[in-house]
C-alpha cells in the first residue's frame, strides 16, 4: 500500500519536473524576441541588449530554467512582458473563475452521467438504453462552443433569462453565478455524454464476468448485483475517464471563456499569445499541464481506494 503510494507520488513529482522542462524547452525554442516585443522595432541594439540582460535572457539555458523553475515553486512566474505586472498576480486574479467553471462542469457531469449510464446498462437493449445511447452519441459530436452558441441563442437571445456573456465580478455573487450557468452547462453536457457511454460500456463489460454469474446463482436480486458488485468493478475505467475528462474540461474552458467573454485563464492565454507575451504563456501552459498531471495522480489514488489488488502483497 505505502509502496504503491510512494511510487505514484514519486512518479507524480518526476512527471511535473519533466513537464516543466518540456514547457521551458519548447518556449525557449520559439521564434520571437521578448525584448523586441517589449521595446518595439525602433529600439536601438544597445537598448535591446540591456533589456535582454534585465530579463535574464543572456544567461545559459540551464541557468534560466533553474531560475524560472525555482521561482515557479514559490509562485513567482516572472513579469508579464505585455502587462508589466507579475504573471503570478495575473493568474491569481483569473484562477477562481476558471476553477469554478471547471469544477462546476465536473460536478454537473458527475451528477448526470453515471446514473444514466448504469440505468442504460441495466436495461441493455431496451428503449431506455437506446435513448441514452442515441442522445450521448449526438452529445459527443456537438462541439462545446457550438453548444454554447445554441444555449446563448435560446436562453439569452430568445428568452432573455440569462446573460449572453461577460462577467460582472465576484462582488456581485448572484450576477456572477448567473453568468456562469450557461458556460457550465455547455461544458458539462458534452462531458456527460462521454461519461454516460463509458459508464454503460464498463458496466456491460463487468456484467459479462464470471462473478456476476456467481452472484445470480446465489440468488441476489438484480438491483443488488448491479449496485453492489457491478458498479464498484466498473469504477476503475470510469475513474480513469473522469481524470481525462477533467483535463478536457480545463482545456475546454479556454474555448468556452472565449465564447462567453469570461475573464479567466483561457482568455489570458489567448491574449498573451496575441501579445506574444511568452513568459505568461509559459506559466499558463505549465499550470494547465500541472492540473492535468494532478488530476491523473488523484485518479491513481482513487484506484488504491477502489481496488485491493493494487495495494501490494501478492497479485
Amino acid at each position: 500500500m505505502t509502496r504503491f503510494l510512494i511510487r505514484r507520488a514519486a512518479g507524480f513529482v518526476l512527471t511535473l519536473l519533466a513537464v516543466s522542462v518540456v514547457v521551458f524547452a519548447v518556449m525557449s525554442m520559439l521564434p520571437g524576441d521578448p525584448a523586441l516585443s517589449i521595446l518595439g522595432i525602433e529600439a536601438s541594439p544597445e537598448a535591446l541588449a540591456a533589456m535582454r540582460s534585465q530579463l535574464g535572457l543572456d544567461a545559459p539555458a540551464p541557468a534560466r530554467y533553474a531560475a524560472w523553475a525555482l521561482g515557479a515553486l514559490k509562485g513567482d512566474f516572472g513579469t508579464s512582458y505585455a502587462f508589466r505586472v507579475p504573471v503570478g498576480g495575473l493568474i491569481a486574479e483569473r484562477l477562481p473563475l476558471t476553477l469554478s467553471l471547471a469544477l462546476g462542469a465536473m460536478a454537473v457531469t458527475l451528477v448526470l452521467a453515471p446514473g444514466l449510464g448504469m440505468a442504460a446498462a441495466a436495461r441493455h437493449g431496451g428503449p431506455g438504453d437506446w435513448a441514452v445511447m442515441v442522445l450521448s452519441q449526438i452529445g459527443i459530436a456537438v462541439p462545446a462552443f457550438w453548444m454554447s452558441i445554441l444555449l446563448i441563442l435560446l436562453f439569452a437571445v430568445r428568452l432573455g433569462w440569462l446573460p449572453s456573456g461577460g462577467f460582472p465580478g465576484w462582488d456581485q455573487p448572484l450576477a456572477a453565478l448567473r453568468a456562469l450557468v450557461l458556460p457550465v452547462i455547455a461544458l458539462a453536457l458534452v462531458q456527460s455524454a462521454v461519461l454516460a457511454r463509458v459508464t454503460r460500456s464498463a458496466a456491460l463489460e463487468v456484467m459479462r464476468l464470471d462473478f456476476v454469474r456467481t452472484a445470480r446463482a446465489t440468488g441476489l436480486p438484480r438491483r443488488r448485483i448491479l449496485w453492489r458488485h457491478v458498479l464498484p468493478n466498473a469504477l476503475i475505467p470510469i475513474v480513469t475517464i473522469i481524470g481525462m475528462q477533467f483535463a478536457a474540461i480545463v482545456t475546454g474552458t479556454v474555448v468556452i471563456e472565449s465564447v462567453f467573454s469570461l475573464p479567466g485563464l483561457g482568455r489570458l492565454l489567448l491574449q498573451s499569445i496575441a501579445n506574444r507575451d511568452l513568459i505568461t504563456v509559459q506559466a499558463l501552459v505549465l499550470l494547465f499541464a500541472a492540473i492535468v498531471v494532478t488530476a491523473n495522480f488523484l485518479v491513481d489514488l482513487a484506484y488504491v481506494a477502489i481496488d485491493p489488488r493494487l495495494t501490494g502483497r501478492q497479485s
Partner: protein
Amino acid sequence: MRHRASLILGAVLVGLMAAAGLVSLAWTPWPLAEIDVLNKLAAPSAAHPLGTDGLGRDLLSRLMAGAANSLSVAAGAVLLGGGIGTGLGLLASAWGGRVEEALMRLCDLSFAFPALLFAIMLAAAFGPSLLNTGLAIAFINVPIFARVARGAANQVWVRDFVLAGRAAGRGRAAISRDHIVPNIAAPLIVQATIEIATAILAEAALSYLGLGAQPPAASWGRMLAEAQTLLWVAPMQAVWPGLCITAAVLGFGLLGDGLRDWADPRLVRRQA
C-alpha cells in the same frame, strides 16, 4: 443489429460530407469569395439555398468548401500522425525492453499536455494557419497511436501463432509484417476513425479561436465565430456550420463504433 445501423448511418454521413467537400473543389453554386454587400444576410432563396453571410457570400458554397478543409485537414493529420505513431508502437513492441520503456514514458509525458492546449501553443509559435493546425493535430496523434499499436501488438506477440512463426525460424521484422500488422489493423482503423472525429472538433475549435483557417478561407469554425457577432440579427448563420460539424463528427463516431463491433474478436469468435 445496432452496430449495423451505426455503420450504415455513419457511412452515409461521412460519404455526404466527403462528397460535398470533393465537389466544392471543382464547383460551388457561387464563387467562394464573391462578396455581394447589397445581398448580405439574405434569406434562403432559389439562388442561395441557405442564404448569404454577413458579406453576402453564398452560405452553401462556403459550407461545402468548409467540408473540404475540415475533412482533409482532419483525415490528413490523423493519417500522418497515426502512421508515425503506429510505426513507433510496432517498433517498441517488437523490440521490447528499454526501447519500449523509453517510448512509453515519452507517451505518458505527452499526455500531460492536453491536445487543444498543445495545438494552441503550436499555433502561437508558428503562426495561425490551417497547415499548422493540421501539423499540431498530427503531432498529438503520434503518442495516441503509438500506445494503441504497441498495446495491440503486444497482445499479438504472445499468441501461439507468433511463437509458431518463431519456431519456423522467422525474424522479428518478418513476423511484424506478416502476423502483427494484419492482426492489429482492425483496432487501428477503428481508432483512426474515432480520432478523425476528434480532429474535426479540434480543427473547428482552433479555427473558431482564430488560430486555424485564416480569412478568406472557408472553415466551419471560423464561420461560427463570424456568426456569433450576428446572433441577434441572423441566428440561422450560427446553426448551419455547427450542424455540419456535428454531422461530420457524428458520422465518423458512428462509423468507428460500427467498425469496432464488427472487428470485435469476441464476436468473430462466436461466429466461428
